[in-house]
C-alpha cells in the first residue's frame, strides 16, 4: 500500500544521506521523495511516498525515521485531510499544426506551455498525482521525449474534519 509520510528535519549536512541510506538499508521502497525549506530557516520538510506491505512495516518506517537525531517529527498523513501536489515537466514531439490541438488537451488540466521549438513543445502541469498521470497518458500518442517530475509534496489542510480522530498512526501508547 502507498502511504504519504512527511518528516520535518533539521537542516544539517548529511541529514538527507542519513535518511535515504536508512530507507535503503532497511529495505523500504520509496516511490518518491521531495525536499525543501520550510517556514523555519533551520528546518526542511521531506515528503515521502512509500510502498509498504502492511501496517507493521509502516510503523517501522516511521519509527526508524523518528529515531534519527536530526528528524524532528514524522507523520503519516495519508488518511488525513491533506493537500498534495506534484509538478511535472513533459516534453513532447509537436509541430506548428499540432500545437492548437495539444493546447486543447492540456487546457482542462490547467497546464501551461513553457517552451516551444521547431519540433517539440514542453508542458508544465501541477496537481495530484492522478491528474498528472492522466495528462501524460493523453499526451503519449504525440511522442513523449522527456519527463521530469518532482515527486509529491504535501501537508495538512488548515482544518481537519472533526470526526476524524487526530491520533497519529502507532500501536504505541
Amino acid at each position, binding site marked *: 500500500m502507498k502511504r504519504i509520510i512527511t518528516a520535518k*528535519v533539521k537542516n544539517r*549536512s548529511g541529514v538527507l544521506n542519513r535518511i535515504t541510506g536508512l530507507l535503503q538499508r532497511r529495505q523500504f521502497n520509496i516511490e518518491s521523495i521531495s525536499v525543501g525549506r520550510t517556514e523555519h530557516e533551520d528546518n526542511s520538510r521531506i515528503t515521502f511516498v512509500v510502498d509498504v506491505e502492511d501496517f507493521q512495516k509502516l510503523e517501522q518506517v516511521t519509527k526508524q525515521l523518528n*529515531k534519527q537525531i*536530526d528528524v524532528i517529527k514524522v507523520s503519516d498523513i495519508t488518511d488525513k485531510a491533506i493537500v498534495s501536489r506534484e509538478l511535472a515537466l513533459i516534453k513532447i514531439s509537436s509541430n506548428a499544426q499540432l500545437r492548437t490541438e495539444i493546447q486543447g488537451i492540456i487546457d482542462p488540466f490547467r497546464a501551461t506551455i513553457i517552451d516551444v521549438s521547431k519540433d517539440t513543445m514542453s508542458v508544465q502541469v501541477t496537481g495530484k498525482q492522478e491528474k498528472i498521470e492522466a495528462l501524460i497518458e493523453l499526451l503519449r500518442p504525440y511522442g513523449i521525449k522527456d519527463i521530469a517530475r518532482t515527486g509529491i509534496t504535501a501537508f495538512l489542510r488548515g482544518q481537519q474534519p472533526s470526526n476524524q480522530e487526530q491520533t497519529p498512526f502507532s500501536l504505541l*501508547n
Partner: protein
Amino acid sequence: MVMSNQEQERERKAEAHTPKTGADLLIEALIEENVETLFGYPGGAVLPIFDALYKKKHLFNQVLARHEQGSIHAAEGYARISGKPGVVISTSGPGATNLVTGITDAMIDSLPLVVFTGQVNQPVIGTDAFQEADIIGITTPITKHNYQVRKVSDLPRVIKEAFHIATTGRPGPVVIDIPKDVAANPCQDSYDNSFHLPGYQPTIKCNPLQVKKLKEAIQQATKPVILAGAGVQFAQASSELLEFAETHQIPVVNTLLGLGTFPGEHELSLGMGGMHGTYAANTALYDTDLLINIGARFDDRLTGNLDHFAPSALVAHIDIDPAEIGKNVNTHIPIVGDAKYALIEMKKQIKDSPTFKAWRDVCLSNKKEFPLWYNEPTEAMIGQWVIDKVFKATKGEAIVATDVGQHQMWSAQFYKFNKPNRWVTSGGLGTMGFGFPASIGAQLAKPNDLVVAIVGDGGFQMTLQELSILQERHLPIKIIIVNNQALGMVRQWQEAFYSQRYSESIFSIQPDFVKLAEAYEIKGVKIEDPHDFEKQLDELIAYDGPVLIDARVLQQENVYPMIPPGKGLNEMIGVKP
C-alpha cells in the same frame, strides 16, 4: 603522571603566550565531560590534537593500542564495564577506517562511544587528498549520530551533544570528524556550548496505562516468563528485576548480552535462551502464554525461526528504543521507557498475581532434567570443562571478556554470572578479535578486579598485538586461549551442515603462544593435561601480573544444545548427552 610545580609553571607561561586552538577546546571539552581514559592513536590529521593533549597529559590516562581496532574494542570493554562512554581518537583515512568494525559492534550492542576522527584540511576535502576517507559517509549507517565540524565555534557544542547522544536513551556510538585546520587554527577562548535537540527526546518514563495492561495480562496468565536483556544493565535495574521476579515467582530467561542482569545461579533463572541456550529457557519461551521482554531486542539468534517463537504468547516488550518494539516479534503490550523506571512502576501497580506454581514447577523440573552437559574429560581437556573450572576457581566473580566462537558460547553457558557488569562479549556483530582488547578496557575500568579474557586461538590472533599494553602497564589480565587449533565454530558448522568438509577452518600451524607471551615479557604456560590444569589454575589466577594460558583442548567438541539454523525453539538438538 604528576607534574612538578616547575613544569606546571612552565606550562602556564607557555599557555599564556600561545592563542587557543580548536584542539585546545577539544581537550577542555573532554575535561568538562570528566573523561579520564582515552584510547587514541596519532597520525597526521590529528597531530594538533595530540599536541594539545601532550600539554594536558597529566589529566588523562592515555592508552596507546597497537592497532586502532584494538583502541576501539578496548573502549567498548571500558564502556561496558564502567558504564561511562569510551573515548577514541584516530587519525584520518586508514586510522578512521580501522575503527569501522568497532563502531559497528558498538552500534549493534548499544555501547556508548564518542569517536574523534581526524580529517584532511577543509580546502582539500573532496579532492582525494592524502589520507582522506569519507568517514561521515562510511559511518552514517553504523552510528547513532555523526558530525563533521566545519567551524571551530561549533566544536564545543558538538562535543557536548555527542556525549549526550552517546550516553542517553539507547546508548550508541557517535563520530566527530575534525578537519585538521579546525583543530590547528587559533580561535577564541570559549564558545557557547548550549544545545537543543528537538528531534532527540528519549522517553524515559513509561506510560502507566501500558503498565496497567501488563498488570491485567499477568492476572490472566498461567505461564509467564521474563526475558531480560542488556537494557536491564544499561538501566541498572537488576535489583528491581530480581524483586519483581521473586515477588511474582516468574522464571527468567537471559539473552546473551543480558547475562548477569539476573543471578545465574538463582532458582528462577532458566539460563540463556536462543541458539545455544538451555532446554529449560527455550522451552519456556516456546510454551509461555505471557512473555515479558525487558530490554532485549528479539535478535534472531535468540528467537530462532519466528514461526515457532512464543507461538501462543501475549507479548509485552519494555524498551527505551520504540523502534525495537514490534520490529521482529508482534507485540501486544508495548512499553516505551527505561527498564528501571518501568520496573518501579510495575512494582507500584502490580501488587499481587495468581500463583504460577504449576508452571514454575515445570520450568524448574526442565532445568533439573535437562541441564547443560559435557563429558568429563579424562586425558584431554575440552572447552566446556575448562570454562567450568575457571568459573569455579574465580567463584563466579571475575569480569569475563570473550571473543567469538565456541569458547564464547561455552562461557555464556558455563560461567554463571550472578552480578551485572561482569560480562563483556560481542553479541550482535559477533566480532572476532574483540575479546582480548575489550578485556583491556574492562581492566582499565576496574583496575582492582580480576579480569579473565577467554579467547579462541583464531580470534586471539586477530588482535594479539595488544599484548604490548599488558607489558607496558602490567595489567594483570588472565588470558585463556581455548586452543582447539581450529576455527572451532566454523568447523562445527562444517561438520554438521557441510558433510565434514572442513574448508579453511583447521590450522595446520600455529605460533608458539608461550614464546609469544614471553616476547612481551608476559608469563605464558601451555597446558594439555586436565590434572595439570586443575593443579595450576588457582595459582595462575592469583598470579600478580598478566598470564597467558594456552589451554589445549579437543578439536572435535561441539557446542550443544543447539537450535539448528532455520529451526524453532522447540526443535533443539543435543539436549542430552
